């Protein structure tokens, strides 16, 4: 089984947002793998391995689109256990969801993965578009917001538990297909491949790269391609014009007692 995991680098979401000249100030940014994409790498590894025996049957290919520095995030994924990486060289300002989808489509056509697994959204742009657009463009079935994935015994389909407004929907997709993952995909029993014993409990969260993994990652293949190599001619149709910080909330106040709180909600706010 071959799984393609597209991933994006994002500025470390734990650091404070700064704005300069109407854009996010990235001059001193620390880049990390987008949280949801890192979770997709974890889910992909769980799908192809036998965690009890430490063996695997399949390949995880990670791909990113970005400048040379973005190779670092591919190395992070290789250190977790992905087998090989592709970086498509491009500057961030020349990309939008449509260009990314055109690029990934070309990669999918070349690589012919059984499954495309990715984060549901990037935590910088919060757009939540690429997985669905890619599936639409390629005419593939999709399952977004996956909280669980079960790979069928015969490996020709997956059943995905999707978090929807009213609960959880289980959607079965024939492969190849596109699955985007939500946070709970890295909970201990979220991924079942019937190779790792079904009773196996993973550690919560994505795996850490071992020292051995980090050393091995340096030797794993990392191909670099250009948009021209892939025949991508699409130009961006969405453009960020400006960015601003949200208006600050008026300072609130501390109340000393429940009685004071109830009185304030009643008389000042008239909400109860």
């Amino acid at each position: 089984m071959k799984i393609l995991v597209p991933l994006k680098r994002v500025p470390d979401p734990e650091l404070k947002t700064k704005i300069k000249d109407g854009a996010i100030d990235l001059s001193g940014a620390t880049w990390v793998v987008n949280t949801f994409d890192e979770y997709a790498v974890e889910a992909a590894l769980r799908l192809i391995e036998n965690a009890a025996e430490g063996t695997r049957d399949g390949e995880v290919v990670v791909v990113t689109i970005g400048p040379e520095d973005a190779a670092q995030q591919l190395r992070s994924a290789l250190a977790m256990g992905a087998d090989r990486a592709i970086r498509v060289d491009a500057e961030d300002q020349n990309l939008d969801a449509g260009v990314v989808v055109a690029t990934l489509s070309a990669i999918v056509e070349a690589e012919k993965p059984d499954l495309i697994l990715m984060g549901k959204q990037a935590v910088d742009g919060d757009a939540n578009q690429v997985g669905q657009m890619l599936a639409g463009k390629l005419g593939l079935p999709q399952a977004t917001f996956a909280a669980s994935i079960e790979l069928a015994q015969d490996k020709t389909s997956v059943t995905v538990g999707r978090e929807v407004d009213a609960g959880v929907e289980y959607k079965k997709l024939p492969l190849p297909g596109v699955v985007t993952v939500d946070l709970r995909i890295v909970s201990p029993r979220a991924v079942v491949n019937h190779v790792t014993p079904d009773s196996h409990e993973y550690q919560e969260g994505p795996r850490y790269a071992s020292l051995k993994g980090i050393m091995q990652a340096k030797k794993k293949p990392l191909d670099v391609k250009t948009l021209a190599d892939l025949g991508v001619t699409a130009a961006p149709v969405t453009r960020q014009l400006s960015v601003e910080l949200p208006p600050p909330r008026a300072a609130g106040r501390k109340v000393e007692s429940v009685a004071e709180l109830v009185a304030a909600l009643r008389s000042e706010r008239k909400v109860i």
Partner: protein
Amino acid sequence: MGNVLAFCEVSGSVLRTNALSCITMARQAADEHGGQVVLLLIGAGAGAASADAARYAPKVVVVDDARLGQYTAETFAPIVARVARAEGASVIAATATAVGKDLMPRVAALVSAGMASDIAAVIDKNKFRRAILAGNAFQTVEVSSDPIVVTARQSEFDAAEPLGGAGEVQTAEAGDVQTLGAEVVKVETSKSDRPDLNDARIVVSGGRGMKNGENFKVLEELADLLGAAMGASRAATDAGFVPADWQVGQTGKIVAPDLYIAVAISGAIQHLAGMKGSKTIVAINKDPEAPIFQVADYGLVAQWEQAIPELVAEIKKLKESQT
């Protein structure tokens, strides 16, 4: 051209509340584009809601077909794309619900459109304002494709009022329904008599500090007294205290009720991203340094074990005095 096609979710014979926010956004976009709003209802039995929908727009297109009983992006997206072309839509809109978020990017791919997701405001014809970085910043984005696909953040657009007349209702064929082999095999719904978290006027939310699911009962009692929906932080849903669909935050639901009561929630940025648009925020937390107090209009430093039963008693008293 210039029309705005708004995909509306229905519930039985009425539009879902979330659709009314999309209609408000669609009216603004239609003004910018000099066109009219056309509502699109899709599903087996969707026709039942056409009379309700016709109160809100000059035209409603209904695709009611037995093969469309269960929503899937695979079957719905081609219908939205086809109706959008037929109606001369310059903007194709929906609300950013679980369905809207799943469906609309796929529609965008089918019509080769650029998309603005989860917008907070329509600035002009093709410029939109939206939150990024978990609500820590707002961007203005320009979409230069034709058509444009847009989803509206429900909490940022008021519910539309009826127009005071009835629009034309037109039916359209579902055509060739291709599932691409995708099939919904089961849906586990969490049944509740409480209002929907997305639409509720009051939300009572609990965090990790509640320690276990049993302890949420006291919050539920408070919620039921207030006619409120229940919410939770990611820490509480991840710990399995309460169902995942109660999660409020960047990756859960984004809510903006009149009153949000956060109990034993520390206030991680991901949680704040989901609730800081609320009109009045109350935080009850034993830690005076908890970040939730920075966004709260009223902060009470207290143990929930004492404060919540007291709050329940006070509100009961209040309700009794009102009857």
